[in-house]
């Protein structure tokens, strides 16, 4: 069935956006793709550069086996074809931050072939996006234009760092789908430990191919938006670019195939170079490197160490913990979230754990701008809080206050409950005394409540207030019901 909800309405009718993405993901490894230089982020300029990275005369690349393993691991995570033989090619072009004058990449024979990724949409639906390929390639260095009045400098720390380029088929039809795709890829890479997915540090970035067409028509001419480095920008860039293309076509123009850049400040895409200006990269197999060949046994050994991936985890959370698909999706979207939840849920009420983690906990983190690994409240502490609710030490209402204090102080919930005297009053005599006191002080309200049973709620509130919220709400309700017989008949 055709989903028309994503169509853009132009002046002349509906348009469909078609998108394919190329995601560049920096491989988690201690050293570069073809040299032993370290890859740490944020090191001082030109301190992580080997003779090979600087392309000194006579230097030769040697493949880093760890990077190969990471690419295979990622391929397995994308349910993709792992090619036992692949070839490294040279992509030739001149640029000051490209010391060799070529980038070593994989062109004709990539290490990973076709795969599939299921993306999660906000309406709860899922959709399959096909992966065309994944290949290994070298990152370039960085040109620095702000160090000298008349010259540019080059920092080669990134030169030669291993990247995985993950190319999707043109299967996405909305900015949301494209964003969901990037999120899902990021989650999978993080689960696998093959890329840290930190887009703000540049370890993951996307090129977005956008075209528009009349629904059902052939694919339109695409423009490639290069190097978009946040999920929010991906959405903005697509929205802008699709509208731009529709306007051009509706004004009687045609779309030229070109490379564009997204200006995040202005929120627009701008032409970078046309197809005619595109480089002829003169790809050819790198004669310094033999074809990359490994055995199925090697692949199988890596497969045996694969962790549970987001989709499988989601299914398990639904079946094992009885969570809703939506909640399970929220929890597995990041590995750290899922792990936190499972730590909280272990041996406790899983649904309650899910509610607390996705509700109060994520809310507080969000508000404070913190991540799970910097959270002041640990999974163990949140679990302890849930236990206090479960064994009636505190009410759910009080628990929220306790949580707030926990988040501020990092203290254990039991300590807070004791210190603040928040333990729930379950002594029926004490509660009844409080009820009697309130009833005695408010005879008019008693009369009203007898006539209008809903007024009893007012007494619940007053009793809770009188006990500083510590009275067990169920006990209060029960005792009040006994005082107002019409209620008991309900």
């Amino acid at each position, binding site marked *: 069935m055709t989903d028309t909800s994503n169509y853009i309405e132009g002046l002349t009718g509906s348009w469909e956006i078609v998108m394919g993405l190329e995601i560049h993901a920096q491989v988690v490894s201690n050293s570069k793709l073809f040299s032993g230089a370290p890859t740490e982020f944020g090191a001082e300029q030109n301190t992580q550069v080997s*003779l090979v990275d*600087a*392309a*000194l*005369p*006579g*230097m*030769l*690349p*040697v*493949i880093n086996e760890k990077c190969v393993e990471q690419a295979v691991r990622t391929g397995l995570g994308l349910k993709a074809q792992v090619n036992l033989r692949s070839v490294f090619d*040279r992509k*030739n072009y*001149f640029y*000051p931050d490209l*010391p*060799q*004058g*070529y980038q070593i990449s994989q062109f004709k024979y990539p290490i990973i072939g076709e795969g599939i990724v299921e993306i999660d949409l906000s309406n709860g639906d899922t959709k399959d996006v096909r992966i065309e390929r994944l290949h290994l390639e070298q990152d370039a260095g960085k040109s620095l234009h702000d160090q000298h009045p008349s010259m*540019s400098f*080059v920092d080669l720390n990134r030169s030669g760092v291993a990247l995985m380029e993950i190319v999707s088929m043109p299967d996405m039809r909305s900015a949301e789908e494209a964003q969901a795709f990037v999120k899902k890829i990021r989650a999978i890479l993080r689960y696998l430990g093959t890329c840290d997915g930190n887009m703000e540090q540049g370890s993951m970035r996307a090129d977005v191919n956008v075209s528009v067409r009349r629904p059902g028509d052939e694919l339109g001419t695409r423009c490639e938006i290069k190097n978009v480095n946040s999920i929010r920008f991906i959405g903005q860039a697509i929205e802008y670019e699709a509208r731009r293309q529709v306007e051009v076509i509706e004004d009687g123009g045609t779309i030229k195939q070109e490379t564009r850049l997204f200006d995040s400040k202005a929120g627009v895409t701008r032409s970078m170079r046309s197809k005619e200006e595109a480089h*002829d990269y*003169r*790809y*050819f197999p790198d*004669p*310094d*490197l*033999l074809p990359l060949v490994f055995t199925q046994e090697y692949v199988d050994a890596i497969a045996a160490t694969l962790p549970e991936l987001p989709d499988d985890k989601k299914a398990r959370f639904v079946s094992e913990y009885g969570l809703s698909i939506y909640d399970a999706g929220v929890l597995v979207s990041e590995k750290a979230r899922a792990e936190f939840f499972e730590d909280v849920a272990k041996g406790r009420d899983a649904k309650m754990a899910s509610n607390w983690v996705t509700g109060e906990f994520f809310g507080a983190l969000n508000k404070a701008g913190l991540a799970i690994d910097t959270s002041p409240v640990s999974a163990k502490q949140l679990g302890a809080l849930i236990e206090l609710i479960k064994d009636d030490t505190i009410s759910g209402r009080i628990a929220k206050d306790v949580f707030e204090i926990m988040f501020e102080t990092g203290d254990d919930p039991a300590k807070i409950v004791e210190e603040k005297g928040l333990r729930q009053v379950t002594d029926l005599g004490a509660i009844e005394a409080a009820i009697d006191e309130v009833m005695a002080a408010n005879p008019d309200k008693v009369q009203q409540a007898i006539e209008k049973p809903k007024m009893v709620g007012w007494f619940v509130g007053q009793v809770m207030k009188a006990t500083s919220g510590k009275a067990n709400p169920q006990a209060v309700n029960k005792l009040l019901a006994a005082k107002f017989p019409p209620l008991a008949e309900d």
Partner: protein
Amino acid sequence: MTELTKLTLTEARDKLVAKEFTAQELTQAYVSAIEAARPLNAYVLETADKALEMAKASDARLQKGEGGALEGVPLGIKDLFCTKDVRTTACSHILDGYVPAYESSVTANLWADGAVLLGKLNNDEFAMGSSNETSFEGPAVNPWRRKGDDTQLVPGGSSGGSSAAVAAHIALATTATDTGGSIRQPAAFTGTVGLKPTYGRCPRWGVIAFASSLDQPGPITRTVRDAAVMLKSMAGFDPKDTTSADVPVPDYEAALTGDIRGLKVGIPKEYRVDGMAAEIDALWQQGIDWLKQAGAEIVDVSLPHTKYALPAYYIVAPAEASSNLARYDGVRYGLRVDGDNITDMYEKTRAAGFGDEVKRRVMVGTYVLSAGYYDAYYIKAQKVRTLISQDFAKAYEKCDVLLTPTTPTPAFGIGENIDDPLSMYLNDVFTVTANLAGLPGISVPAGLSANGLPLGLQLIGKSFDEETLLRTAGVLEEAAAFTAAPEAWWRA
């Protein structure tokens, strides 16, 4: 020539061990000979002080009986090999003043065995040439001259400094590299022995690249035995070079048994090319007879795709070179000619830094890799390469080693071919096939041309079977008994 510089490498090695003279004495003799031979322009950098220092250390080790396989042996090193703290430019203007902070694997192996560095040797710029005339340092000159003619001749190329130095006895042996014949052709032109090992036998790390899939380091020496000793030291697996072979290095000297009885020697009929000089043909026949007399069996074989080898080579080699030389961009080291912007700087630097032949090959290489031409040229050439390898594989079902001439002509005059790239490229017609197939080949001096110039015969062996190659070469050398030597006209 002193008594000391007359010795072969193996003779000098043995006498050093026997303490008949010291490494310092031997090195000093070479240092003096080098100074006296400057008209040959064989050395582009003399490192006399370093040589004497290394020789002193060698003497200390020899004294303690701890000498390595080449202890105290003075060598010249082709300027394509990066030598730590010693200027290395591949004889190109674009690498002006480049001093590597690292040592190539091959030279590191040689120094580890006790050899002594005399200096860096001239070569065609980036090893692109067959005459040493494309060197930014000016041409090296062949010690040999035609009978009764003082025309200056080329020493071959690209390893022209290496061949001239060995022929003129201003190095005991030299390193060289061979991409299409750059070891064997200069050896043939100078009456020396040139050995191109199997691709992957000697590591390429630290050797300035010309065409990565073809380049192979090897020695130029005065005798086959010297070549065997040099190869043993130069060769070996290098984890820094993925294309170097992880196979054991045999004792090549021990392979020189002189016994080739029953050996099957293949004679490829396609190497009898049109217009080949009668004296080359006659020498080839002579070589066949010598090997037959030594007990070898002569077998006619066919290498049908030989005629496509040269065109294929002149596609593959420039293609790789165009990419390998992209790193010389003026950004990080070597020559920089300032420009208005980065592209202008690139263009000015490369225009000034590369010579004509290098530019020609970079352009050819860029062209054959371009969109629309890649399949017609590069892919086609790679297919030819496969066919040539298959030719050899088939031939080796019938024989153990092949015998051919090394070059179609003896050495020619400086300037005679420089404006005619195509006839210059023809120098490689007998040698490129071994590079395309990755096979080992050796040129042995076998006789003199009518005008008194040395001529070489080439043997091509099976992959990683340098032992058979050297054994056969040794027999050829003994039969040829080549004792002619150039007159030392270069001495003032």
